[in-house]
């Protein structure tokens, strides 16, 4: 297990370094100049040169990238201020350390991702289980058509609709607000219900369909038949044997979906006016804020890598064949 972890972490580090390099190269491959966005009406050659110098854009790209990479561990002294480690640079726009922005925004995205995942796992897997339990029933057929509908909607379409109906018209749910778990855990929770719910909808259908077919497949497995041959009750067999077998693949699918989960969280943030990584990413891209872009890319990629390792560990927990191999 330890060797497995070490190998995964090392592999992830290489990937992250490559991602950072690609981000740098792509950024400079664009014909746009970030200095043009901060020179206002004074885009004289001397002012642009000064901005390039202030932002460190006057150095060769590869040097900039290397300085950035080293700064993550060692901190940096930049023309516009100090940037203590872990230094992800200073935002081009307001000279705030990117790390401070990431720390401030990450909880929102993480809460959304976790909350949304929780809802779609409960709803999706739950629907799939009931469908598999009552194969061919009216519920089964209704669930599959409803979830098909869920798959075809878009967050930015149902989001405003849900806010209008559930929050403004009916007043059932908070219209969505940034969580601050330390200060207001209660309102943090209620403020996330609607966004998490909306974000989860697009995943319902996939998980209910996958769960249903995995359960149907598991129910015809020989070890499930053995359990029935032992005289164990149908529900016991369904939950303890078939579901246990289906859990591994569901977790694997979840691991693959992590990228989309974070992506979904980002779109949801925009729809609900929440301040997470997505909101940062949008301003980073539109304002050509390279350090911010890098920071968001790296923290997003790191999250996905870490969560994948967690998912793999969960898989091992569920399947003793992997755990004890």
């Amino acid at each position, binding site marked *: 297990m330890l060797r497995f972890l070490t190998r995964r972490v090392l592999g992830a580090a290489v990937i992250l370094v490559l991602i950072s390099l690609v981000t740098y190269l792509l950024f400079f491959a664009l014909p746009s100049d970030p200095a043009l966005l901060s020179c*206002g009406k004074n885009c*004289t050659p001397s002012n642009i040169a000064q901005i390039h110098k202030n932002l460190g854009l006057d150095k060769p790209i590869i040097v900039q990238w290397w300085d950035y990479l080293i700064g993550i561990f060692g901190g940096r002294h930049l023309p516009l201020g100090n940037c203590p480690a872990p230094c992800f640079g200073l935002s081009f*726009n307001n000279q705030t350390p990117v790390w401070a*922005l990431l720390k401030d925004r990450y909880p929102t995205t993480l809460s959304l991702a976790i909350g949304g995942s929780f809802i779609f796992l409960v709803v999706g897997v739950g629907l799939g289980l009931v469908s598999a339990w009552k194969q061919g029933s009216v519920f089964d057929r209704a669930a599959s058509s409803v979830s098909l509908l869920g798959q075809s909607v878009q967050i930015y379409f149902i989001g405003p609709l849900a806010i209008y109906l559930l929050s403004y018209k009916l007043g059932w749910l908070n219209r969505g607000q940034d969580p601050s778990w330390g200060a207001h855990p209660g309102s943090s929770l209620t403020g996330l219900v609607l966004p998490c719910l909306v974000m989860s909808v697009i995943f319902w259908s996939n998980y209910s369909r996958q769960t249903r077919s995995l359960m149907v497949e598991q129910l015809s497995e020989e070890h499930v038949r053995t359990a029935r041959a032992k005289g164990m009750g149908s529900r016991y067999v369904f939950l303890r044997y078939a579901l246990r077998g289906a859990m591994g693949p569901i977790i694997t699918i979840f691991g693959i979906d992590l990228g989309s989960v974070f992506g979904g969280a980002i779109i949801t943030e925009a729809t*609900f006016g929440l301040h997470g990584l997505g909101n940062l990413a949008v301003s980073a891209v539109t304002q050509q804020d390279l350090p911010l872009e890098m920071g968001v890319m790296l923290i997003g990629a790191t999250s996905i890598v870490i969560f994948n390792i967690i998912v793999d560990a969960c898989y091992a927990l569920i399947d003793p064949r992997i755990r004890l191999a």
Partner: protein
Amino acid sequence: MKKRRAYSAAAVLSVGALALSACSSGNGGGGGSSNPSGGSTTAASTAKVQTITVGTAADSVGPAPAVAGAKKGGTAIDLEPAGINHLDPAEAYVNQEQVIGQLFSRQLTNYKIDPTTGKTTLVGDLATDTGTSSDGGKTWTFHLKDGLKWQDGTAITSDQVKYGIERLFSSFETAGPQYLQQWLTGQSDFRKVYGGPQGGKSLPDSVLATPDDKTIVFHFKTPHADAPYAMALSGSGPILKAKDTGPKYDTAPFSDGPYVVSSYKPGKALELTRNKYWDAKTDPIRGAFPDKWDIQLGVEQPGLTQRLEQQSGSDKDAVSLVQSADPTQMSVLAASQYKSRLESNYQPFVDVFNINVSRIKNVKVRQAIIYAFPMQQVQTALGGPQQGELGTNLIGPTVSGFKPSDPYGKLTKPLGDPEKAKELLKEAGVKNLHLSFAYSNSGQRWANVATTLKNSFAKAGITLDAKAIDPTAYYTLIGKTNNPYDLYRTGWGSDWPNASTVIPPTQDGRLVADDDPNYSHLNDPKVNSEIDRISKITDLTQQAAEWQTLAETIMKTDAPEIPYLYDKYYNVYGDGLGGISYNSAYGTINPNTIYVK
């Protein structure tokens, strides 16, 4: 103000098109100038324009004019679609930064707005008046009022103002206006002469003098009649040297205004609470009624508009000082239920299509393009008349001296005049004219504009090749003097209500360079010499009239641009707020008269 940041334009433009018939726009709510309803084709010529005047010393005495029904207390909420890039007054140039900056920083002069009539007057803010000039407009003297204090109680003195002006030269101050730096040094590359106060260097008294604690004297290299206006820019105020944190000041400024920055999370939230050392009696501009301003940043559209529409919970005390409604919501807001809390007013921005003079050299061809241009259809494709009135002048209606002028009869034929265009092309001997049109690929709206233009130009026998450009690269690419495009849209706003901040930067051919705002690359020696002559006029009223005449002449004889839209602020605010007035110099809601009911 400045040209709006490309990204905010992108954010606005990213919303899908809403096909609106060109119906009448809503009446302006609250105070400020009103836009009488009427056909949008004639709106520009009938719009009553509030002329901003320069006030007297008596006008400059505090406190600010009373607002009917106003009371102190409560929390006012401001919703902003993006973050604020700069809190350092020296870096403030965007109208959002300026209007929010007014709440925690004061300048030598500023705009006083009457909450009932909307009459806007330039008055002394820290200064006792708008300044006195000598030496033919080259020397300007300001005296500070008594009782001015910083947020820690330190008295404000003239050497702090001098330090604030010197600080504008610092290497990290790159985003703010550069008028004072250039006027004081006579150099566009002013840092060669002076690099800021870091390292103990100071501007000599021959440039900027403080003969006593209350007096500051500017010695410009050339006459500048509109120096009083330049002193209203955010950076034209004091900085307390002991509190100067350099670039970090941009996120934690030290206040001399009615509020202090009590908490700031960039891109997320800015909280302003009362500054107990601010004395209302010294301030003719700021009413400062709410106890607190809760400025919520990064509230993306259309959610922002939806919140103002619904005004649920604390949103009833919310306003968006700078952001117009989402274009998709503008027709909704035109409904009568919103009338009592709708603000619709001109912004100092004029939208133009630049004709690239370095590629289209024949003026007759440029005129043909202007005739063929379907301004009303473009307005419709962009979202209708709520966000901008049809306009045909290089100078917008918020600028003093503005007179409607329409040399090509665009307002009578807003759909274009293809026959006239064909005629001119024939005269010019041009057949099968191909135009390359560049637009920012930031949403469906501009794609719709491209389609509209293609169809209308085809009627005049002109073939349009539309080229979509990534929004982040748009200004970089069209800013190149050798760009391969014939037609591209830009917007320009005045920095203060005098066309000296419009015509010289956009029409002076000697400035043409990469990234320079003379996007059409017009270089007409007659225009250049007129610019020099008018700039020297010391009487502002006469100067304003001369700029208007020059703007008309440029359109008639050079035809380098197609002005087509005077931008508007158009949005609702929460019922819980009163005393809403409008700052037409900034093109924003004026926070200084707002109170929480």
